[in-house]
């Protein structure tokens, strides 16, 4: 396997190795290419402005991704367009993708703000990051000012919001269980069970110790030798090398709706138990919500602290399921984090390296950010619950979910479909992911959540949906070399 020394970080876009967390202001520009002739020189200039992984910027950063339609718009040869992955070529809104991703009914692309059939075509995505709001505005302006004269049209600017304590809008700490990639770890001691680099970057061995399907072009189509040779066959040059696919999902979160449901559930439970005089509605609502997530609001995993939140857990990612919680008594079998990253809990041979390796072939690198004002600036669910009716109309807030993966079908789509949306996940019957899972499937309601306990499970029924898809697309995040080649 390639060692750190041979990896050319200055060829890889920065987002692959970091989320630019210190650059607290960020926005995403969705762009349509109107005139490819005019756009090319502008885009070529941009290649030099893009932030690559060799630098740790403290002022601002810029990354650039492109859709399949965008590549076609740039008049890239058909054979090259066809050499990309099936998922990237098909896009996110084919009938089958809608079905497996849960984008039906209210979530259907027809209602999307962007990326749907009724909205303008998205060709490019500019990811802008800056140390503060002013710097971000300057960066945005410098980009958008010259767009229209260069054959480009800004379709949408998506703003983001950094919430207190790295929380997402429901009030839980986010971004904890990221896949560990040895090659990106330059100082800290090595961790166990690294995910192979090829799962997140094309052109490196993946979880099967093979190369993931990627765009290869005949050597003669690259006379200037802008690209690297393909590692397997020198007759080809590797357009995918050091690049990856970027999945973007614009997800609205109904924060008051989420906590109202949990408050109601907590109340019903309390009424059912008349002997219980102690008023712990709030506590119970937060406990049930944590059961759904698999973590407490502080981010501490239920497996680490099953009975109450323990904000001081030193490493909130240091746990497995099988040895300590095989039956889900601590963290329910269908909880959000147990399905989106089952660690060592699934077959084959739960608790073994095999099980971990299996999970590691279905991981994603999350790089998204929240958007919209928080329901309460404290981001503390206890404060949320104090007055759930303070907003007269629903406020636009949620998550700009962004993830990176080399194989969209085996990674992002698999996690969303086979793990999150699948009501039969892990031996369950009608339990989708309680946070992000689709509530109806093939015409039947699938809206249970089961909490394993002694002597017998507890079950929440008729869970409404707390999330709505508002946009999305599959992008390619090329390497520096690939950008130069594509815009040449």
């Amino acid at each position: 396997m390639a060692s750190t020394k041979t990896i050319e970080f200055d060829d890889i876009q920065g987002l692959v190795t970091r989320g630019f967390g210190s650059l607290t202001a960020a926005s995403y520009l969705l762009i349509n290419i109107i005139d490819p002739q005019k756009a090319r020189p502008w885009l070529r200039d941009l290649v030099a402005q893009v932030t690559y992984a060799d630098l740790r910027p403290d002022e601002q950063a810029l990354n650039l991704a492109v859709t399949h339609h965008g590549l076609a718009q740039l008049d890239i040869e058909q054979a090259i367009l066809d050499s990309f992955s099936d998922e990237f070529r098909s896009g996110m809104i084919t009938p089958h993708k809608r079905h497996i991703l849960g984008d039906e009914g209210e979530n259907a692309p027809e209602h999307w703000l962007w990326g749907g059939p009724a909205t303008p075509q998205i060709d490019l995505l500019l990811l802008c990051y800056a140390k503060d709001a002013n710097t971000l505005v300057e960066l945005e302006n410098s980009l958008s000012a010259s767009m229209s004269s260069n054959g480009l049209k800004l379709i949408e600017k998506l703003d983001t919001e950094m919430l207190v304590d790295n929380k997402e809008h429901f009030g839980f700490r986010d971004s904890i269980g990221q896949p560990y990639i040895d090659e990106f770890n330059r100082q800290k001691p090595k961790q166990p069970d690294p995910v192979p680099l090829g799962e997140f970057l094309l052109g490196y061995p993946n979880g099967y110790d093979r190369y993931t399907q990627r765009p290869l072009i005949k050597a003669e189509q690259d006379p200037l030798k802008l690209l690297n040779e393909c590692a397997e066959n020198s007759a080809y040059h590797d357009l995918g090398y050091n690049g990856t696919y970027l999945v973007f999902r614009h997800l609205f979160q109904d924060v008051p709706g989420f906590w109202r449901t949990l408050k109601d559930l907590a109340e019903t439970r309390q009424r059912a138990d008349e002997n219980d005089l102690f008023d712990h509605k709030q506590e119970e609502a937060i406990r049930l919500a944590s059961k759904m997530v698999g973590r407490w609001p502080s981010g501490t995993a239920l497996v680490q602290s099953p009975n109450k939140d323990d904000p001081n857990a030193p490493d909130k990612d240091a746990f497995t399921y099988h040895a300590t919680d095989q039956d889900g008594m601590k963290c329910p079998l269908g909880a959000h984090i147990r399905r989106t990253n089952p660690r060592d809990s699934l077959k084959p041979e739960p608790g073994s390296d095999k099980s971990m390796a299996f999970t590691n072939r279905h991981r994603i690198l999350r790089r998204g950010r929240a958007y919209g004002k928080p329901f309460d600036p404290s981001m503390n669910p206890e404060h949320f619950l104090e007055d759930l009716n303070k907003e007269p109309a629903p406020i636009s807030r949620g998550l700009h979910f962004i993830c990176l993966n080399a194989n969209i079908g085996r990674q992002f789509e698999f996690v969303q479909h086979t793990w999150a949306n699948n009501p039969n996940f892990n031996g369950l019957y009608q339990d989708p992911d309680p946070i992000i899972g689709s509530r109806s499937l093939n015409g039947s309601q699938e809206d249970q959540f089961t909490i394993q306990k002694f002597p017998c499970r507890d079950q929440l029924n008729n869970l409404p949906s707390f999330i709505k898809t508002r946009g999305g697309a599959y992008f390619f995040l090329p390497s520096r070399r690939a950008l130069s080649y594509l815009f040449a």
Partner: protein
Amino acid sequence: MKQLMKRIQDLLKELHPLPQNALILRMPVIEANEGELRKVLATINQDPADNAIFPFSVFSNIHFARFLLLEGPVLDGRKQSETYATTLIFIANIDGSKTDFIDELVKHVSQGLDQVLSACHGYPLKSKRTRASRKSFISEHIIPSQTDYVNTIGRSASMIRQESELRDALKLFLNGIKPDSFRSATALRDEVIKFVSSNPEISWALASRAQPSFLWRSIENIRFAGITALGMLILLWAWPILAVWVLALRMRESRDSEDTHRPPLERLNQLRSTEDIAAHNPFAAVGYVKSGWLRHTTTQTLLVAAQGVLRHVFNKGNLAGIPVLGLDGVDTIHFAHWIMLDDGQRLLFTSNYDGSLESYMVDFIDKVAWGLNLIFSNGEGYPLTRWIVHDGAKKEQNFKDYLGNHQIENQVWFTAYPRLTAVNIANNEAIHDGLYGHMTEAQARAWLKRL
């Protein structure tokens, strides 16, 4: 001689029938009728259970059923015994015998049979359509499968549905009580049993399940012992031949060629558009067997051997799992068939599996690649293997592309229990089994976890 052997085989099968069987038909389609047939099948597929033409839900003993249109074989210099154009394949996984099921078919859906099968050569003319003539047409078009996989031998479709109702009733019961007030698992279990016995709709569950007779099991065991002994004898006596055989295959496989082209995206999207409409999916793929005597004989022999192993070893929900050898099984397949077509020139594989195609392929690659390689490496274009079991399906992208090139669409697919996975079904069975007999506190705890 061949006929006599077949008669004896049929007679033996009648004397010692398997509880589940598959009716597999292959019928040549009249070219001029194919368009109309496709329309009829599409209409049926809009609601396979309750459509007006061929409502599968009238048969309580069907697990899965499908119609698929199979093209070819392509001539291409291959040996040809009969000329086929498109043929219509019908596969039904049923409880009970094929003959009884054919009786039921002509009795309950005779008009549907007429609408579909009249598109095929040799179907009785309108004036001559009787139960008997329809029956004989169907019987004449039965084709054998070489190997069948049944998730759990003896588990009937009606039992699956009943046990699912039982679980639903227990679910509602538990949602309505306060389990926390029970001091022990056994006390709660007693309460559950009390509820079942007081509820006439599910009190049947207190009786233990019908088991195959002692005689049937004994014959099965004797059969297994016989096959094992035969296998051992072959290994002991013919190992030099087997060794030479393996070497010959090893030499051949290094010279074989593999498919390297990606399946067209339109084809894949067309296939995907009919998938993921239930907890499980139907799979069908067809391909040519590599030419030559060696490959043909290998395929036939392995299929026979696989049949013995699947029937006697992997018959309880875990396909190809051998913990001693560190081999992981697959618990997501309900039924599967390996069917040789066109004088052994082609192999049709069909299955009903839980989850998405992506997860099915992942199971193949991660868990049972060796088993797949054994059989499918005899197929043209299959990803190259080493020593028959290595590589092959392990080459993720080549394997996925190979499947994409060989998968075919099912025009009609019916499932009797669309929301249940094989794991759910096994769990429901264990819930049922836990309703009778004594349990310790630990056993009762484990049982309650299933509810």
